[in-house]
């Protein structure tokens, strides 16, 4: 399979330091990629650069074998054959649903257009709404019209900019699955931008985590969760906290409240401190465990409680416990560690560490 989209060393800047810095990745045809990151991290700028709305200050973008963006030359969006779904949908208020969908298909035969509109309305479950105007539709319906409009001309790539941000939380995941189904059915290559990992996991084949303008990791969801490339990714993806540990002579990491849990990163010498990622599922509630920690806070989640536990050096860890274990705040409960995927990083102020090496080679237990 050939790469439908190649982003090579791309940087984007608006009068100042780059907001997108040296990003590279590629996406195969038919795949759904996702740019995931906190707001203001540069993911939308990157998407807009792919769309052709932002020029590059470095690197190049290759779409379907054609160089569409290089420094100083940007093929305008209208001839890139992209489709885009906007955060606010940007439906044309003066056009009906059908006219909105037909908007990008001018020049094609009438019959073909009509067929495509019907197919898309069917696909989106909007059959009865073809003659209505955008303001007469609900948010979810508008969203699907926007998607249908972007898909109608069969673009080389579909770009979705936070398409679910105005949806109800419970609708989002379902919509994401639905839309994934629709895209897969049409075999469309797509890139989604979001700050919501649930959405990203539900929809994307591959996910790139962006932090402070840089691509931290481009991977499948499982790897992002279990083998995060750096502290930023670790903290951003999934629940979990970073806990300081000490590297012992035998290169094992020791935690302040428990014994050693595994090997330290290569270059971290004995005596250094490291940051260890502890996810709620790494901490098992066990009344028989000698290790007891005080409950600082708790959140009821139906099937489980999420307890926040105090640890000796002043930090805290999270622990997911079945909800019939109803403990009060202030109580001490027994826990033990069961770390399946040990993720640790040298601490930034660790003088003995070669940071650049450490960063790219987190230990995996």
């Amino acid at each position: 399979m050939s790469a439908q989209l190649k982003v090579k060393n791309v940087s984007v800047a608006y009068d100042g330091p780059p907001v997108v810095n040296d990003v590279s990745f590629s996406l195969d045809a038919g795949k759904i990629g996702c740019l995931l990151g906190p707001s203001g991290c540069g993911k939308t700028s990157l998407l807009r650069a792919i769309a052709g709305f932002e020029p590059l200050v470095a690197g190049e973008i290759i779409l379907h074998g054609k160089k569409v963006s290089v420094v100083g030359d940007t093929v305008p969006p209208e001839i890139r054959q992209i489709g885009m779904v906007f955060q606010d949908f940007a439906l044309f208020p003066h056009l009906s649903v059908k006219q909105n969908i037909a908007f990008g298909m001018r020049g094609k035969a009438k019959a073909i257009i009509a067929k495509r509109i019907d197919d898309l309305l069917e696909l989106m479950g909007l059959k009865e709404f073809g003659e209505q105007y955008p303001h007469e539709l609900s948010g979810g319906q508008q969203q699907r019209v926007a998607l249908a409009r972007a898909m109608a001309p069969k673009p080389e790539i579909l770009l979705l900019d936070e398409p679910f941000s105005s949806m109800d939380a419970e609708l989002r995941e379902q919509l994401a699955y639905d839309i994934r189904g629709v895209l897969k059915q049409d075999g469309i290559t797509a890139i989604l931008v979001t700050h919501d990992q649930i959405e990203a996991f539900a929809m994307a084949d591959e996910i790139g985590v962006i932090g402070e303008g840089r691509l931290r990791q481009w991977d499948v969801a499982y790897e992002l969760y279990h083998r995060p490339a750096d502290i930023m990714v670790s903290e951003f993806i999934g629940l979990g906290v970073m806990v300081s540990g000490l590297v012992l002579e035998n290169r094992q990491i020791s935690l302040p409240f428990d014994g050693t849990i595994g090997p330290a990163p290569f270059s971290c010498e004995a005596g250094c401190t490291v940051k260890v990622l502890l996810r709620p599922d790494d901490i098992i509630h066990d009344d028989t465990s000698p290790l007891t920690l005080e409950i600082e806070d708790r959140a009821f989640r139906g099937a489980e409680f999420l307890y926040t536990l105090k640890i000796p050096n002043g930090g805290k860890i999270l622990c997911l416990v079945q909800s019939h274990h109803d403990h009060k705040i202030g109580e001490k409960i027994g826990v033990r560690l069961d770390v399946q995927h040990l993720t640790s990083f040298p601490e930034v102020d660790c003088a003995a560490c070669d940071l650049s090496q450490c960063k790219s080679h987190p230990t995996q237990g």
Partner: protein
Amino acid sequence: MEKAPKTNRSKLSGNWWSVGTSAMAAIFSIPVLVVLGFLFVPAGEIWSHLVDTVLKDYVLNSLSLMLGVALGSLLLGVGTAWLASMCSFTGRGIFEWMLLLPLAIPAYIIAYTYTGMLDFSGPVQSALREAYGWGYGDYWFPEIRSLWGAALMLSLVLYPYVYLLTRAAFLNQSLCVLDVSRTLGNGVWRSFFTVALPLARPSIVAGLSLALMETLADYGTVQYFGVSTFTTGIFRTWYGLDNAPAAAQLSAMLLMFVLILIMLEKNSRKKSRYHNTSQRHQAINRIPLKGWKNFAAVLYCGVAVLFGFLLPAGQLVIWTFTISEESIDGAFFDLIYHTLLLGGLASFFALLFALFLGYGQRLHNNPIVRLSVRLSGMGYAVPGTVVAVGVIIPFAWLDNTLDGWMRSQFDYSTGLILSGSLFALLFAYLVRFLAVSLQTVEAGLGRIKPSMDEAGRSLGYSPNEVLRFIHLPMLRGSLLTALLLVFVDVLKELPATLILRPFNFNTLAVRAYELAADERLADAAPASLAIVAVGIIPVILLSYSITRSRQSK
């Protein structure tokens, strides 16, 4: 790489907009710049004379007049806009469009009619004297021909700008915001002051700045009322003192006032980018007013309509049919035709250029384009005669240069091609009124979210096609507003028309002025009345289109 050539074309088109807006701004600033060019001609000792004697008056009176018109037009414009758009009371539907009617009356004509009514020898004072047996000096009566009188006259005919833009803003406001405010425990009236008013502020300020620029450019009213302002000062210096450089330097000072105004206006708009976030507008549930509130609302709107339109128009009707020696004859149709022709052409081209500038600014929002757009709108505050002179000089120069060259090269004289043509006159109108259509178009474009453009681009439409297929249909209401506002302005325009029109070409405003200037106010009434009549039609259309654009959203 089959699409490579298109890349270049599109890049060129981008440059084209940028260069185009700058070029257009340069062209439309020529008259103002020509006038400012006199700044470099030494004006002699005249300045020490002006500073010693009259300059203080010019500055103080101009400022006071602006303050008065600002207060007056806010008082009349904002409250009525709120009532007409958000409340329901007796006659609201009629007031909604009648409140716009004063726009059709030129300021100097309303000044004549009120002088006729309120003067010592006018019907009001005569009736008072008769009723109470008073004589001169026995009683106090406000003098209409004064600074405050001029501010009142100008407020009465200029408040519709504030009303028009504020009402559009109220109608476009997302009702959700108002509802939120009311659920937070604010009453309707508190919500008006704390939410609706601040949200509408950019539109209020835009309307106000139009009114104030008209105020600065006004000559007829202040001249007749004996109030010395910058405008009267410019003419006095130019004609009376025969000192064109000093007059130009006064014009430059006037332009500084305008620049400050423009900057204030821009500033207030910058703070709130006001595309609506909510896509959905519900039908307005107008707040019903009952009892004394209903009465107060009718009274409030009634006062504006009565004094801004009914009384002066009534006076014109009375003059026309009782004492005027003029009659509405066949020649009148020529006048009306000329007036419509000029108004139609000028408003169409003003709209075209405003769209070009406004959209160019949207595409390439760089400092040069922004400056260009601001410069293009400067002419609005410059008195028509000054603009006209600024048009005559470069046009005649161009014509004569071409003629000289043709003579020397081909021994053929082209004479004057542009000077004395309708083209020169239309150009002057554009210089003068581009700000009006620009203001309206910019406000309209500002309400279209940038994502609309990008959606269009991503669907394969070039910037020009986005304008044509997305913006134009969405802007329909604003475009019509721009068209009609300029039309009404051209209808009333006098000084530039007077100087620049071709031979044997008269308009209603020229006819009305010539008789009024000869102090035959009553004889000027039929032509004035015709201006009002011709002006009413677009004003009603305008009101209708705004209401409709709201409903179709």
